[in-house]
C-alpha cells in the first residue's frame, strides 16, 4: 500500500508535448509510472514517447480510463487546464507550474472542493510512491521503496529528507510536496490522515514553513489521533528580513507567528520536533 498513487494509477499528462513535459514524462515512465494518455490540442491522434495523444481530457479519460492527471502547462493556463480535468471526472490532479496567480488559485481551490477532488500544487515537485508511480519532477534514482511517509512544503528539503531515510535504510512509502505557494491545494492534515490509514507507512516526516496555518491544522489533527504513528516535524522559515512589509496578513493570525510557535504546537501534540534537517538522522535511527 501507499497513499494517493500506486502502480494501478492511470496517469494522464496534460501538455505532454512541451520540452520540459517530454523530458519529465520520459523519466516518470522509466520510473515505472503507468502513463496511459497525453493531452495536447496540436498533436491529437499521434503518439508521443509511446503514449497516445488526445485533443481533450474528456476524450482521453473515455478512451484510456485515466484517473489522475499530471499538468505541465504554463502558470497562466493552469486554471483552465484544471477545470478541464475536473469536468472530465479526474479526482487527483498534480500541477507542476511555477507562479500561478493567487486569485486563480483561490478559484481553483473552490472548484476542486466542489468536485471533491484532490489537488497537489499548483507549485510542487509532485508525488511519488517509489517503484510504482511518480507524478512529478523528483530527481531520478534517489527514492527507495520503504515505510516513511514524507510531506513537505519545500522541494529541496524533501530531497534532503529522502536521502536521510535512505541512509537509515528505511526508504519511503509515499513522498508529497504540497508546494510553497501562498495557498496550497493539498494540506498537511489531509495527508497525515491518509498516512495513518496506510499500512505501509510506519512514521511520517513533515517539513513545514512559515506563512499560512497548514502546520497548525496538522498539529491539531495529530493531537486527536488515538493510534499515533511517530511524526517527525521540521519547521523552518526566515524571520527578520529587512524588507518585510506583509503585516496586514499577520492580523489574521493575531500577530506574527514564529517558527518556534509552530514547533511548540507539534511538541504539544506529541510529535518529535527536530531543530535541523541533519537531526533527522538520529531520530530515524531510533524509529528503526
Amino acid at each position, binding site marked *: 500500500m501507499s497513499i494517493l498513487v500506486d502502480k494501478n494509477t492511470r496517469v494522464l499528462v496534460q501538455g505532454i508535448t512541451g520540452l520540459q513535459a517530454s523530458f519529465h514524462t520520459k523519466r516518470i515512465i522509466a520510473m515505472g509510472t503507468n502513463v496511459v494518455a497525453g493531452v495536447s490540442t496540436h498533436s491529437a491522434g499521434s503518439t508521443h514517447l509511446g503514449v497516445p495523444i488526445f485533443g481533450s481530457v474528456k476524450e482521453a479519460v473515455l478512451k484510456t480510463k485515466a484517473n489522475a492527471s499530471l499538468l505541465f502547462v504554463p502558470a497562466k493556463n493552469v486554471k483552465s487546464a484544471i477545470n478541464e480535468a475536473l469536468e472530465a471526472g479526474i479526482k487527483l490532479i498534480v500541477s507542476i507550474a511555477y507562479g500561478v496567480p*493567487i486569485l486563480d488559485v483561490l478559484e481553483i481551490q473552490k472548484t476542486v472542493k466542489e468536485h471533491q477532488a484532490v489537488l497537489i500544487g499548483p507549485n510542487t515537485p509532485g508525488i511519488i510512491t517509489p517503484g510504482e508511480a511518480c507524478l512529478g519532477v523528483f530527481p531520478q534514482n534517489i527514492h527507495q521503496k520503504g515505510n516513511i511517509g514524507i510531506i513537505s512544503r*519545500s522541494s529541496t528539503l524533501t530531497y*534532503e529528507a529522502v536521502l536521510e531515510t535512505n541512509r537509515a535504510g528505511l526508504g519511503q512509502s509515499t513522498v508529497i510536496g504540497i508546494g510553497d505557494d501562498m495557498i496550497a491545494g493539498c494540506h498537511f492534515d489531509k495527508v497525515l490522515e491518509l498516512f495513518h490509514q496506510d499500512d505501509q507507512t510506519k512514521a511520517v516526516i513533515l517539513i513545514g514553513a512559515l506563512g499560512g496555518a497548514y502546520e497548525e491544522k496538522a498539529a491539531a489533527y495529530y493531537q486527536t489521533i488515538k493510534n499515533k504513528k511517530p511524526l517527525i516535524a521540521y519547521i*523552518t522559515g526566515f524571520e*527578520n528580513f529587512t524588507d518585510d512589509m506583509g503585516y496586514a*496578513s499577520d492580523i489574521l493570525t493575531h500577530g506574527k507567528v514564529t517558527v518556534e510557535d509552530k514547533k511548540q504546537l507539534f511538541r504539544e501534540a506529541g510529535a518529535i520536533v527536530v531543530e535541523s534537517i*541533519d537531526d533527522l538522522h538520529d531520530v530515524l535511527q531510533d524509529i528503526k
Partner: protein
Amino acid sequence: MNIHEYQAKKLLSQFKTNVPQGRVAYTPLEAQKNALFLSEKGPWVLKAQIQAGARAKGYFPDQDDQNLSGIMFVKNRKDLITVSQKMLGHTLVTPQTGPKGKLVSKIYIETFSPTKQLFYLSFVINRIEACITLLVANETDNILDLAQKESESILKINLDLNERIKKSDIMRILSFLNLPEKLFDELKTFIQNLYKAFICLDATMLEINPVGITKDNRFIALDTKISFDDNALFRHKDVVFMHDDYEVGENVLKASKCGFKYREFEDGNIGLIVNGDGLALAVHDYLKQMNQKTACYLNIKGGVDEDKIAQSLKIMMTNPKVEGIIINILGGFLRCDLVADGIISAVSEIGLNIPLVARFEGTNKDAAKEILEKHHFNFLTADSLQEAAVKLTRAMKEND
C-alpha cells in the same frame, strides 16, 4: 511588488475611490509650486514617498528638528520650502524601515482633508481559509498590537470571490463603526469599488489606513498601501511600470536581472548561495544552532549557466557584511560541476579574501568537489550541512 502611496492613490481613483487631491514633487521649489497649484491656502500635507509604513512615527537622523517626521502638516505658505528641504534628499527612519532607513527622493503634497471620524480598512489574501478577507477596525494606530491583544476589536469578513459585497456585511460594518444607516449607500459604494480594484489589479493586500469620513459624509482614502501578486504582473503591464528600482536595493536588483532571488537580513555575517529556498533555510537553521547568523542569501534557482553562477558570487561579495560564504547546491536539473566551474571563473576574475565552503549533493557532486579541491585556491568542501557550518566558522575565526 509594492508601489508608492501616490501611485496607489492614482490607481484607486481610477476605480472611483475618493482620494485627496495631490501632486508629487522632487525638489523643494516644485513642492511649493505644486502645493499652491492644489490650493492657494493651507494647510497642506507633505508625505515622504518611501515604501514603508509608520512614516508619521519616523524621524530624520541627520536633521535636528524634533517635530520632523515622514508626514508633515504645513499651515503657512512660507514653510513649504523649508519643510520639504528638510525631507527631500534625507534618510527617513521609521519603525518599519530598519535602522538604515530609506532615502526620500520624492514627496507627495496633498490638500488637507478635515474629517470627523477615522477607521482602518484592508483586504488581504487569507492563507488560512483560502479566501479574501476584509478587515475593519475603529483604531488606526498599532493595528498589529490590537490584533494580538484584543482580536475581537477587529472585524473580519470573508468575501466571496468575484461576487458583490453582501448587504448584510455592509450593515455589520456600519454597526461595528457606530455609523448611522443613512451612510449605507456611501459605504457600500466605497467598499465595493475597493474590492473591485483588489480583484482587477490582482492585489495580495490593499490597505486604507486611515479611511476618513468627511463632514459631508463622504468616505475618503487618506493613506493607501497596495501589494501586487508578482505572479499576476503579466496581466498588468501598467503596474509593472510603477516599479521603483531604488526601493529594492542594488543587490536585489542585480540578482533579479539574472533571475535570482536575493534577500538581506537585519544582522549576521554569513552569505548563502543555494538553488532552492529550502537549502538556504536548512543552512540558516544550522547556523542558528551554532550561534551564527545569516547576512543574506541568494537563490540561483534552476536553469543557470556558468556565467550566471559567477555573477551570483560577485553579487554576494559586494555585501560588506559577508565574512564567509556557504554554497549549498542540490543537483538535479542543475549539474554541480557547472556550479564549481562558475565559482572558479568568478574567483579568478575578482579574487576571494573570505572563506568559502561548498556542499554539493546530487547530479555530478563528486566531479564538482574535485574541481574545487584541485584548484590552487583555498576552497573548502563539505558533505553535510553540519560539516559545512563547522568548517566555515572555523575558517572565519582563522581569517580574523
